[in-house]
């Protein structure tokens, strides 16, 4: 368990590290170039890892719906935007506001899908986040 806590903590740190590195590349090229290299280098690393474990093309892949294939193209905009933002908002506020947007849209999706969750906690969470975002804009 303590080992897994460390793993989860490091995984979170890697999110910030990746954004910082991509942001640096964007300073000397462009946000889209940083997104391109992020995806290409990540693909190479994952291709090696996949080859070593699951094989390149698992059986279920062909049956996956179109929705399962659009994450990558969306990720291009996600990484490019993060690279652009980090030089402007800093790592803390870029990460914090992205988490805010993720949670607000996540709750909307949960509600739309009728997913089981404690409603009052979700709504209180949304209010806290909205207040936080407002606090970051206020002079």
């Amino acid at each position, binding site marked *: 368990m303590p080992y897994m806590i460390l793993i989860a903590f490091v995984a979170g740190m890697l999110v910030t590290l990746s954004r910082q590195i991509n942001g640096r590349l964007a300073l000397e090229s462009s946000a889209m170039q940083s997104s391109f290299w992020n995806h290409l280098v990540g*693909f190479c690393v994952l291709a090696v890892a996949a080859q070593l474990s699951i094989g390149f093309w698992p059986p279920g892949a062909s049956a996956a719906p179109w929705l399962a294939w659009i994450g990558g193209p969306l990720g291009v905009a996600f990484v490019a935007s993060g690279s652009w933002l980090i030089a402007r908002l800093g790592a803390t506020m870029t990460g914090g506001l992205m988490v805010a947007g993720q949670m607000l849209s996540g709750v909307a999706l949960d509600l739309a899908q009728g997913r089981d969750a404690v409603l009052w906690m979700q709504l209180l969470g949304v209010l806290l986040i909205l207040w936080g975002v407002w606090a*970051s804009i206020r002079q």
Partner: protein
Amino acid sequence: MPPLPSQSPSRRNAPLEIVAALATGGLLTLMLLSNSAMAAHTSPLFSSLTAHGTGSVVAALALLAIRQRRLAGTRPTRRAPLWAYLGGVSGALTVMLTSQAANSSLALTGTLAIGLAGQVVLALAFDCFGALGIQKRLPRRKDLIALGAILAGTLLIIRARGMG
């Protein structure tokens, strides 16, 4: 001595940038929806592999489209260090570690909450010291208040799902 740019009182979070960051977070919700659909059909590793593969192709096309419109000579002249091209390694490792932790007794809820902590701790350290060539910017009081409220709300929402 002039004040450091990072400590200038006139520095403010522009509304456009805040809206862009929120929208980018919304994009992440859609990405997770898509990537977890692929993971359910295959595995988290393959899901991330295809996302990076299709992303590389789309980003390459976008670069070609941009290049055709951009005039020669407007590109930055400085060259980025080699390590700046390795952000993708970190991203690839994230997937492997996260899927390992989410399958442990931490479950997805615990993995998300602890991951959030790791993300914030390193971001604060980066901003305070100005790491990897990105400008140092000490978080202000209102940034920390905003961050605290966002994190508290996020933990409530993650917990609300875990108890659902």
